[in-house]
């Protein structure tokens, strides 16, 4: 039993704080936690994010005809231990958007399915601690034919993506640090219009989607019972264009965002199959010239989000079943 809950942790991270629906994913794919072989961890999650100010290109502004743009997400996520070194993960959210002012209609629907394979080829004692290296590959694709062309109220960008990530984790006692770098390939999308203007005219309903990169650093406390971490994340769109003055946003905008946040995960002592997860994240900004350049927020909302979730571990392994009574399904 101990063995199971030691490894069943799921921690959520905030991924790209896009101008659109801020997508929270079941990002166990970006932490260093692995599920034990044949253990399946699954759970619902809810998040609420909102912004009043956004960057139109690099110009920070508010919009009285949008007011506060909010996104609610109801998701289902899971992580299965194929082996101790290879985990499979999925997430599927339902998203609902709303603008508090103006006349624009919110949108809702099932968004994109994400699948990841997380592989830990290397784990070794190093110094007083332990170093682990990971390779992670993922894909995502839309589960419904929602429109991406109604930003900032679209529920997503409707692009098929493939991502490749390398990640390193070092744990020293109860303290840990994880760092990762991700490259995201994004497939072109189709919109309902037959033409659109970016920095030039396009007589097509197909939109070229720029790829993106993501850097993530997490520091904190981690033991069998509790994880508490601070997370820094930087999402950069590699291409795309800026929203022009007082224009509407567009899916192929250059959306860049840097977020910081905290996550806490707690395993219920009396029911160790169950864990509770919560967190908070915010898009950061800086007036400073140097820092502002590093943060480089563009074409996204300055979103703040909270989320909560709980996860339950089901154990499919015969070996541990005998020692783990409550795992029955």
């Amino acid at each position, binding site marked *: 039993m101990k063995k199971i809950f030691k490894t069943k942790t799921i921690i959520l991270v905030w991924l790209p704080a896009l101008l659109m629906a801020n997508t929270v994913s079941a990002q166990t794919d970006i932490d260093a936690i692995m599920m034990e072989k044949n253990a399946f961890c699954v759970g619902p999650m809810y998040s609420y994010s909102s912004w009043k100010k956004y960057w139109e290109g690099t110009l920070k502004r508010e919009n009285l005809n949008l007011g506060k743009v909010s996104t609610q997400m109801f998701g289902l996520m899971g992580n299965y231990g194929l082996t101790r070194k290879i985990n*499979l993960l999925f997430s599927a959210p339902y998203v609902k958007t709303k603008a508090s*002012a103006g006349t624009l*209609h919110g949108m809702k629907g099932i968004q994109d399915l994400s699948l990841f394979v997380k592989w830990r080829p290397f784990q070794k004692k190093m110094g007083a601690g332990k170093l682990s290296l990971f390779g992670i590959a993922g894909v995502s694709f839309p589960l419904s034919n929602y429109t991406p062309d109604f930003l900032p109220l679209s529920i997503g960008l409707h692009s098929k993506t493939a991502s490749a990530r390398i990640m390193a984790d070092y744990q020293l006692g109860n303290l840990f640090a994880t760092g990762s770098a991700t490259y995201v390939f994004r497939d072109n999308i189709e919109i309902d219009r037959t*033409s659109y*203007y970016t920095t030039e*005219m396009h007589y097509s309903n197909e939109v070229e989607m720029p790829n993106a990169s993501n850097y993530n650093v997490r520091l904190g406390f981690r033991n069998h019972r509790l994880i508490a971490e601070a997370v820094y994340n930087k999402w950069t769109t590699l291409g795309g264009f800026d929203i022009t*003055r007082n224009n*509407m946003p567009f899916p192929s905008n250059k959306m860049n965002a840097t977020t910081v946040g905290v996550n806490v995960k707690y395993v219920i002592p009396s029911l160790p199959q169950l864990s509770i997860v919560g967190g908070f994240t915010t898009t950061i900004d800086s007036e400073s010239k140097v820092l502002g350049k590093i943060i480089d927020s563009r074409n996204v909302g300055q979103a703040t989000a909270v989320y909560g979730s709980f996860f339950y571990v089901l154990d499919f392994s015969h070996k541990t079943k005998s020692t783990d009574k409550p795992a029955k399904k």
Partner: protein
Amino acid sequence: MKKIIFSSLMAIAVVTTIIVACNKDVEGRTDNTPALNPANIDLNAGAWRPILLTGPAEFAVTAPSATTTPDYIAQINEIKTWQAEMTGEEKRIVKYWSAGAVLRWNEILRELVAKHNLPPYQNADGTYPFPNANNPLAYPQFPFANPPYAARAYAYVSAAQYDALVATYHYKKLYNRAAPYTVDATVNALIPKSALPSYPSEDAAVAGAAVELLKLLFPGDQDYIQQKAEEHKRSRIIAGANVRSDIEAGEALGRQVAQKFVTRARGDRAGAAIGNQAQWTQMETDAIAKGETPWYSLESPRRPPMLPLFGKVKAFLFDSLTAISLRPPPPPLVNSPKMKDETNEIYGFIKNPTREHTRIVHFWADGVGTYAPPGHWDAIAAEDFITKNFSEVRWARNLALVNMALMDAGIVCWDTKYFYFNPRPTQLDPNIKTLTGIPNFPAYISGHSTFSGAAATILGHIIPEKATQYNAMATEASLSRMYGGIHYRADCEVGMTVGKNIGDYAVQRARTDGAE
């Protein structure tokens, strides 16, 4: 379980490979349009009825030098020099412009409209700045190419190009100078050969007319426009289609003809269409005096109405008294049960919109940052004209008919909107949230419906076998405004009828302009 896992691993591998390997270049629908190769060269188009010109010879064009002169031979050698060493870029421009001068300039104009179709951001005190034609690059940039502005721009450019080509074809037939590849067999024809005389150049006339009008309509984009015009003219020399003197004569003629249209545009009352505070207030007061609820802007801060005096602009297809006679009877009274029903109907549409309705709304929205509804109908027209192998002059004539109908539809529609000053559904029921932006002008009658009714009618005359389809498209465009929550049924249905009536004026002209 193992099977599921294996297939999901395979799926990830396959999808990754596809996404990473895929070519992201997006091809535009007209990128690979074949070179214009008209079934009928319309050699006698010089006899077609022009729009503003008193006759095809109103502007003189001097006789060209003979093809045996050293001057001409030097010009032939210019072509040969270009053709001897062609760069990839030169091949590209030959191919691009060979699709048709009227087509490409219409696409450029649509691009300029989309670039400039942006409502100005408010001042700190909640008022709004207006673009200034004399300082076009200062924010807010001139113009704000909103739907009426766009309709007028398309009409002037198209009409001027048509008149320029009527004059051009007159002189082509008169002087009968053969194309360079016909005079000298060693000149390559990089475009389909034609029996049409090459002096003056029809391409240069189209470009010259466009450049002159775009100075007025898009004064801040001169570098781009001039670059396109230079490229266009050069492409025809490289292609072996024209010698330099063909180009020069065509361009000069195009510019002169366009000047007549520039003069008309300066006096067509569009410059005063913005109105002033006193006039805006008067419209509100008049509506109240009639016992009606006046329209007000649903933007925050409230924006002055869009071009409230555009209804007074001089139409192309009829005089101003006719324009007023085309104004429909009033909409249902705001407080009537009929209006309540119509408002409820719209709420029903937006409450839980289907994906198909959303698609229709977005397909036809043509709002901020787009080429506007008249541009959408130009795109529809252009893509169908490509399939018809029209000559350059027939392209211009047909597009001028479509765009004059669209502009005049805009005039009658705007006159109606500000005459009745009727509120939008969301003003009567704030629960009506919209699937696209609410345009900043009164509801009755729907601009999309009026534009679409007019365009479908004239297009159905030009391409009769598609008349039913054009009507179906117009109906869908009209309904899209109800599905989107921004118009009542009366706005749309009456708008369509008014639009069709205006389209009939274009049909009338088409029947009598000598081209059929």
